[in-house]
């Protein structure tokens, strides 16, 4: 009985964590799938909240109260503030109509599946020793990271780039919290939030939109160094 009582919460803990992580992966896929920017932002917000839940759950299960800070930040910053900020920016930059897939959805989904399976394969191969808790968490986190990366390279404009990076970072936090008792997780999550703030700030201030991925040659001539037609290149 005691044994059962001992086991049950572990099982529950595992199930919940696994479920949340899985949901995050699904969210990543949705991110890949969306081609309207607002939809992308909403989906991301959802993913961030899922992350917050997952982190909080980890904190609760393993009695790491400090993780609640991370969770709160994930919820507040990435779940609410940044999506709203990006919303405004999209309006400001007037790119809310854009379809900015560099690769068409089908193929990017296909790539996504490939990456996910690669991640699972790797991690499950790698960590026979570690607790299943860690394994699943790690595998899903890696998948989320790779998908975020994929999103970064399949999207054109800065905003979706940010979103891609943030979903990478979600994956990282997930992995970090999944790695039990890892120090500095909170600090790191703070550091990352700073990064993202910078990111947003940069896009916001420098109107990065067109500077991000434009392929017009005369534009490159103007900006990138080492072109033939160029005056003083400083």
């Amino acid at each position, binding site marked *: 009985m005691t044994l059962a009582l001992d086991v049950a919460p572990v099982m529950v803990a595992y199930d919940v964590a696994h479920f949340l992580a899985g949901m995050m992966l699904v969210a990543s896929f949705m991110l890949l799938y969306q081609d309207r920017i607002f939809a992308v932002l909403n989906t991301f917000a959802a993913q961030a909240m899922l992350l917050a839940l997952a982190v909080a759950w980890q904190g609760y299960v393993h009695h790491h109260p400090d993780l609640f800070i991370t969770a709160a930040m994930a919820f507040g910053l990435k779940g609410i503030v940044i999506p709203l900020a990006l919303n405004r920016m999209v309006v400001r930059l007037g790119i809310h109509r854009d379809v900015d897939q560099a690769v068409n959805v089908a193929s990017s989904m296909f790539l996504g599946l490939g990456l996910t399976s690669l991640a699972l394969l790797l991690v499950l191969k790698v*960590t026979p020793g*570690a607790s299943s808790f860690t394994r699943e968490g790690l595998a899903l986190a890696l998948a989320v990271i790779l998908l975020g990366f994929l999103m970064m390279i399949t999207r054109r404009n800065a905003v979706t780039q940010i979103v891609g990076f943030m979903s990478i970072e979600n994956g990282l936090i997930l992995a970090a919290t999944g790695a039990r*008792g890892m120090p*500095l997780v909170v*600090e*790191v999550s703070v550091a990352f939030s700073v990064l993202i703030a*910078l990111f947003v700030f940069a896009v916001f201030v*420098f109107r990065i939109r067109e500077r991000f991925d434009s392929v017009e040659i005369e534009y490159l001539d103007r900006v990138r*160094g080492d072109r033939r037609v160029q005056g003083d290149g400083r």
Partner: protein
Amino acid sequence: MNVSVWAIAVIPIAAGILLALIPSYRVGAIGNVLASGLTFATSLSFLAMPPVVEDYVILDSLNTFFVVLNTLVGFTTSAFSASYIGHEIETGRLTPLFVRFYHAMFQAMMAAMNIALLANNIGVMWVGLELATLITVVMVGIYRTPNALEAAWKYFILGIVGISLAFFGTILVYLAGQGVLGEGLPAMTWSKLLASAPKLDAALLNLAFIFLLVGYGTKVGLAPLHAWLPDAHAEGPTPISAVLSGLLLNVALFALLRFKMLIAAHPGALKPGPIMITIGLLSLIFAAFMLYQRRDIKRLFAYSSIEHMGLITFAFGMGGPLANFAGLLHMVMHSLTKSAIFFAVGHVAQAKGTQQLSGIRGLSVTNPGLAVGLAFGVIAISGLPPFGAFMSEFLILSSTFAREPLLALAAAFGLLVALGALLLRLQNILFGAPTGPHHKVSASSLPWMVHLSLVLVAGLYLPAAVIAWFQKAAELLG
């Protein structure tokens, strides 16, 4: 709790805060030099110090000379930037406010790099590198021209992605350690990890190494992860280019080496050698070819930095006492020489009023002093005697040849191609009839003279102490 070790990190931070408060840029420049000098002086005390191993700090024969080198180049660079920034303000490319910011950031950057070098905790090491990266991003963009912003932006994106990957690698290392050392701090303490390396989970280490290689490799500027490097060098202020090439690349590579040691200490883990050799050769040859079409003098030398980082990675990939020795030696030679070159280039660009190679001709007629400095620098970086790089490249090639002749041939090919490009540019810069206007610059030739004379001495004579020291480090690297 070792005071002077912490001082290395604390002094720059304090100085940075102070400099942020000083309005006059002249005083700021002087303060910058003083602070860097103080840091350097403190670091010198390491040479006499027994190894230190604490929870967060470590000082072993590997990072000691990296710290010393770091602070030394930081010192000379601050001296150079003092004479450089003055000119930038006269030409109005920077306002005193920005210079204030610049000085503060300079110190902060030095602090970050020192932290990364001294950290015994892989998480702290990561934080240090991330900090250094972000600061340099800001510094690169400081001129706020479209080019500068574009470069900074590219650097930023690639940098943070690299950082994220490196962080994931760090998590994996922690997981590997967790299995043996238990949860919490010990599993992130490098010395403890190394001590129990053979017992760690090999597979996790392998996976971690991949992520760390890609993550930190981006900072090192290994092809094909190098994209940020040339533009960041070309568009930022020259002192920053000098620091980037001379120090930041080294620090990133150092971080990579730490983990290489870890994985090399594990018998079951994958041998990092082949991967590093491949990437190193790729960077070497790729960069060598890229040198030919450059039109911007700073971008030219940025690519040569990629080339040399490739060579060094290649050397460490070969491993063995001699190759490691040569790799360490080459790291030192490269950071000294390359920063010296950037010092000279900075003044050349100011004298000629352009960074475009097409605008820089007949330098040996207009500015003989600068010409000599630049010539010696380029000759040294091309691995020609009597400078130190000749010895390191001789050792790298010969030790490789003894084991893998074909690899040695490939490396030699890359080096020759690069040498061809560099000397072609050098001749065009130095000789022929001068073109365009040229202004007199109040260049302080002391910094590059110090560096080049060090390199020259190293080419002829390595003190036994230094040799012993390098050998210890080389053995650590396995």
